[in-house]
């Protein structure tokens, strides 16, 4: 843990169980940890099934970055705008969305979940970059 601040470690220690519980709740057994690891891999994250398990139990010492947290949440079948907001707040981030935005996000998730998995994957990649406010690296 030499590359992490003492304060950062202490802060993560204080929230890791609650974050883990929330993450477990939004996955809610509909999606296996292995499947979630695969979805995260597709999004460009390397989070193994074992790491997912330990994060959900709140025992992993490595803080979850904002990028991972957002990507993880988007891969979960029980995510709602409210839980997304709550999860980010819990982790100390501010989601600058109005009530209308939260409603629009729920509508988006409702439609997104009726799509085949391949369509969901394409959309999730786009959504992730938009939520993080980043420009996607495009080929060519």
């Amino acid at each position, binding site marked *: 843990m030499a590359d992490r601040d003492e304060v950062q470690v202490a802060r993560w220690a204080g929230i890791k169980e609650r974050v883990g519980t929330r993450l477990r709740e939004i996955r809610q057994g509909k999606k296996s940890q292995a499947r979630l690891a695969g979805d995260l891999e597709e999004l460009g994250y390397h989070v193994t099934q074992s790491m997912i398990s330990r994060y959900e139990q709140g025992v992993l010492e490595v803080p979850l970055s904002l990028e991972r947290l957002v990507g993880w949440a988007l891969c979960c079948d029980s995510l709602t705008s409210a839980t997304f907001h709550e999860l980010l707040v819990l982790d100390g981030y501010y989601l*600058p*969305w*109005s009530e*209308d*935005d939260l409603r*629009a*996000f729920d509508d*988006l998730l*409702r*439609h997104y979940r*009726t*799509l*085949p998995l*391949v*369509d969901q*994957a*394409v*959309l999730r990649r*786009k*959504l992730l*970059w*938009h*939520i993080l*406010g*980043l*420009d996607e690296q*495009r080929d060519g």
Partner: protein
Amino acid sequence: MANARYPAARRAAMLIARRLRRWQIEPDHPGPSNLDQVAVLRRVLEEAGIHCEDSRELEDLAAFLISSPRGTEMVLSARLSDSERLLAYAHLLAHVLISGQRSGLFARFEYHAGREPTHLTMQERREEMVARSLARAILAGRLEGAPRYLYGPMALPSPRNGVRRAAAQVLLVVLHHASRALYWRSPSYQQLRGLPAIAGLVTRLQSFLGEAEPIAA
């Protein structure tokens, strides 16, 4: 939070309609192919800051639009034919227009025929209907076949140019609002409003009441 997608889409819709109309009225022009028209749409959309790309992976989705303060992009299935692409671009653009000044995250999905969801809300069905109608007006090169407030700026009456002019502006604003409200509710009115004769009549009335053509750029 400022919404940049709406003015960009408005500008793009006007430029596209103008370009397509010019093609249609040029007597010597053999008529643009769907491929030509797709190229125009895509170029104008890109110039308006709407990123367009194709995806070979999409299955049920024919296309989708996603927009946020980071930007707006349209992703189309690479399997679409040129005529389907044309419709998809116009339809997604119409959705941006009817979303108006709504800010924040915004997304719309276009499905392949027969894959449409059955769970749309009344509001979503209505939006879909209006978007289709507006897309037809864009592709016909006749945006005036749709209510001005769906694609043009909302004018505010000002007494600075005299009472008669202000009164004409008030009347125009009322008529535009009424037209838009009716367009949202009535498929018959959408069809009627799209007829060239009615669109021409409305344009003449607007001109008579002193309204300028919307400016595209």
